[in-house]
């Protein structure tokens, strides 16, 4: 039963009015007899008392009704408040359900991998496929399809400990020349070789701070620019400069080293300083330890990085073949331009020194298209060991994890005493898929 407040007030007024009227109506006549005065007064007193009782009862009833109305109002207010809370709780539950669904997708029954002992495990990799045609000075043609599949695994072992492994499955063949001077008739060595596996990277790292990290195991030799970037997915030209070929390459230094690498970086204002210092053996010569390092300084706002590199060691496990490498590099990366430059000089025991240099400007035509050129010079110091490559390429990234390239490479082996110059034209289409 619902009551309106104004109705209650009106009802109370009516009841009071009725009570007072009744009192007045029941009052004695004005012709009061003296002997009856006391009796009348007593009677009036009784009636007045009865009226007061009635009024009190009515007041109580009204008060109860008022309380009931107040209770109903309070209930309505609470209900409204509860509705707000319910809506908020619904929203939270929906968010939690979304989150749980996402987590379930990652670690639930559909999870593709679970970590055994690591606190975190990331798995990825890439597939790199290239088809290459080489036409030699004597018009010999050679073609090869390369396939590389690499699995990258990063595990967090503890608060300051990480593990990183790159396991490669490779069908690859380096471009070589079958003529006696090794420059006119191209062929791909091991053309029919099956897929081989290679643990490209396998290091564990202890990180004390940004400035001090210790890496041990197999790591990419921290020299120059391109060898550090290393992987096809990062490179405009998956065929690295001449001084880094063929893999694992010891023309100047090896692509990979097995040992200890201490490295770190520090921001100085807007600029960045970084260093590497390593002691490691190279693949194919594990009995000799090489020591080396790299210092780099980046002017971040200008997009410029300068690097200095050095290595000292022994190239051969069977003979004295000490060597020293000195190198410098400059990287400019700002806006649409990327310009990489590296130079390396070596001093070899019992052999002539080597010189390697390249300059590689690249221009981003759009977010997806990049055009690049590389002038690449190598002099191994040996007879007929001087060669120049001019590389022109176009890179296209239709989506961020797919990289397509078309590359033309003109290789000129320079003439030497009794050896004529020879040109080789190499055409390559390649694609790299990352996951």
């Amino acid at each position, binding site marked *: 039963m619902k009551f309106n407040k104004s109705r209650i007030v009106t009802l109370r007024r009516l009841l009071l009015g009725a009570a007072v009227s009744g009192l007045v109506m029941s009052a004695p006549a004005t012709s009061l007899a003296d002997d009856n005065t006391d009796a009348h007064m007593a009677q009036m007193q009784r009636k007045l008392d009865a009226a007061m009782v009635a009024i009190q009862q009515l007041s109580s009833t009204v008060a109860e009704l008022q309380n009931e109305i107040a209770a109903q109002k309070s209930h309505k207010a609470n209900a409204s408040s509860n509705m707000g809370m319910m809506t908020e709780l619904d929203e939270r539950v929906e968010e939690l359900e*979304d*989150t749980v669904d996402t987590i379930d997708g990652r670690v639930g029954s559909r999870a593709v991998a679970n970590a055994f002992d690591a606190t975190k495990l*990331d798995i990825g990799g890439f597939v790199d496929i290239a088809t290459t045609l080489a036409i030699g000075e004597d018009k010999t043609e050679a073609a090869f399809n390369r396939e590389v599949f690499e699995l990258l*695994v990063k595990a967090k072992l503890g608060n300051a400990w990480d593990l990183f492994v790159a396991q490669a499955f490779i069908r690859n063949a380096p471009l070589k020349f079958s003529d006696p001077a090794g420059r006119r008739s191209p062929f791909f060595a091991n053309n029919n070789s099956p897929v081989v596996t290679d643990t490209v990277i396998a290091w564990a790292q202890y990180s004390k701070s*940004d400035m001090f990290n210790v890496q041990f195991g197999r790591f990419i030799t921290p020299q120059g620019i391109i060898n550090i970037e*290393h992987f096809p997915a990062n490179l405009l030209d998956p065929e690295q400069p001449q001084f880094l070929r063929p893999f694992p390459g010891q023309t100047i230094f090896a692509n990979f080293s097995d040992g200890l690498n201490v490295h770190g*970086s520090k921001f100085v204002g807007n600029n960045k300083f970084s260093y590497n210092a390593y002691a490691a053996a190279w693949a194919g010569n594990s009995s000799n330890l090489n020591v080396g390092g790299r210092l780099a300084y980046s002017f971040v706002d200008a997009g410029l990085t300068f690097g200095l590199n050095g290595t000292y060691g022994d190239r051969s496990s069977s003979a004295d073949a000490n060597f020293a490498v000195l190198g410098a590099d400059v990287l400019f990366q700002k806006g649409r331009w990327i310009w990489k430059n590296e130079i390396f000089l070596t001093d070899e025991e019992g052999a002539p020194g080597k010189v390697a240099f390249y300059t590689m400007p690249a221009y981003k035509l759009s977010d*997806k298209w990049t055009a690049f050129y590389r002038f690449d010079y190598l002099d191994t110091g040996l007879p007929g060991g001087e060669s120049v490559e001019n590389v022109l390429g176009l890179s296209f990234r239709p989506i961020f994890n797919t990289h397509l390239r078309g590359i033309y490479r003109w290789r000129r082996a320079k003439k030497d005493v009794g050896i004529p110059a020879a040109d080789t034209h190499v055409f390559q289409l390649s694609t790299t898929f990352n996951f």
Partner: protein
Amino acid sequence: MQNIFLKLVLAGALVLLAFTLSTPTIAQEYAVMVNAQNGFSGDDNVKRTQIKRLYLKEQKNWPGGVEAIPFGREEGSAAQQAFIQKVLGMTGTELEAHWLKLKQMSGETPPRGVGSARILARQIGKKPGAFGVVQASEAAAVEGGKVLFEFSIN
């Protein structure tokens, strides 16, 4: 009669033009939140630069040594796009290329993207090195967090 009609049309066009020009563009305000214990200070530019380095994992610790725990927002969300554009100063393609390179070289992955502002707020409030971006209107609800700086995008 024709003149009056022409004048009316012109007047109408002018009024429409004035209305269009005077209509303000609505700017969306965002706040980069850090844990309340975070003592990093500096001008707005210094703070942005620091957040950029930590988010991109060029630096892994806050100055002072606390390990940074960067959080992103859900991929494609307005907050994440605003953060990439205004704080990182990059395009989406540049950012993807950055993560691709880091993945190959050291196995690093992008910071976790959190869809819910409430869940992000809770993470920031609980972890000393954490930071992330929320709408400025949501910042007050971050218990145990504080605003490092604000930015807006049209």
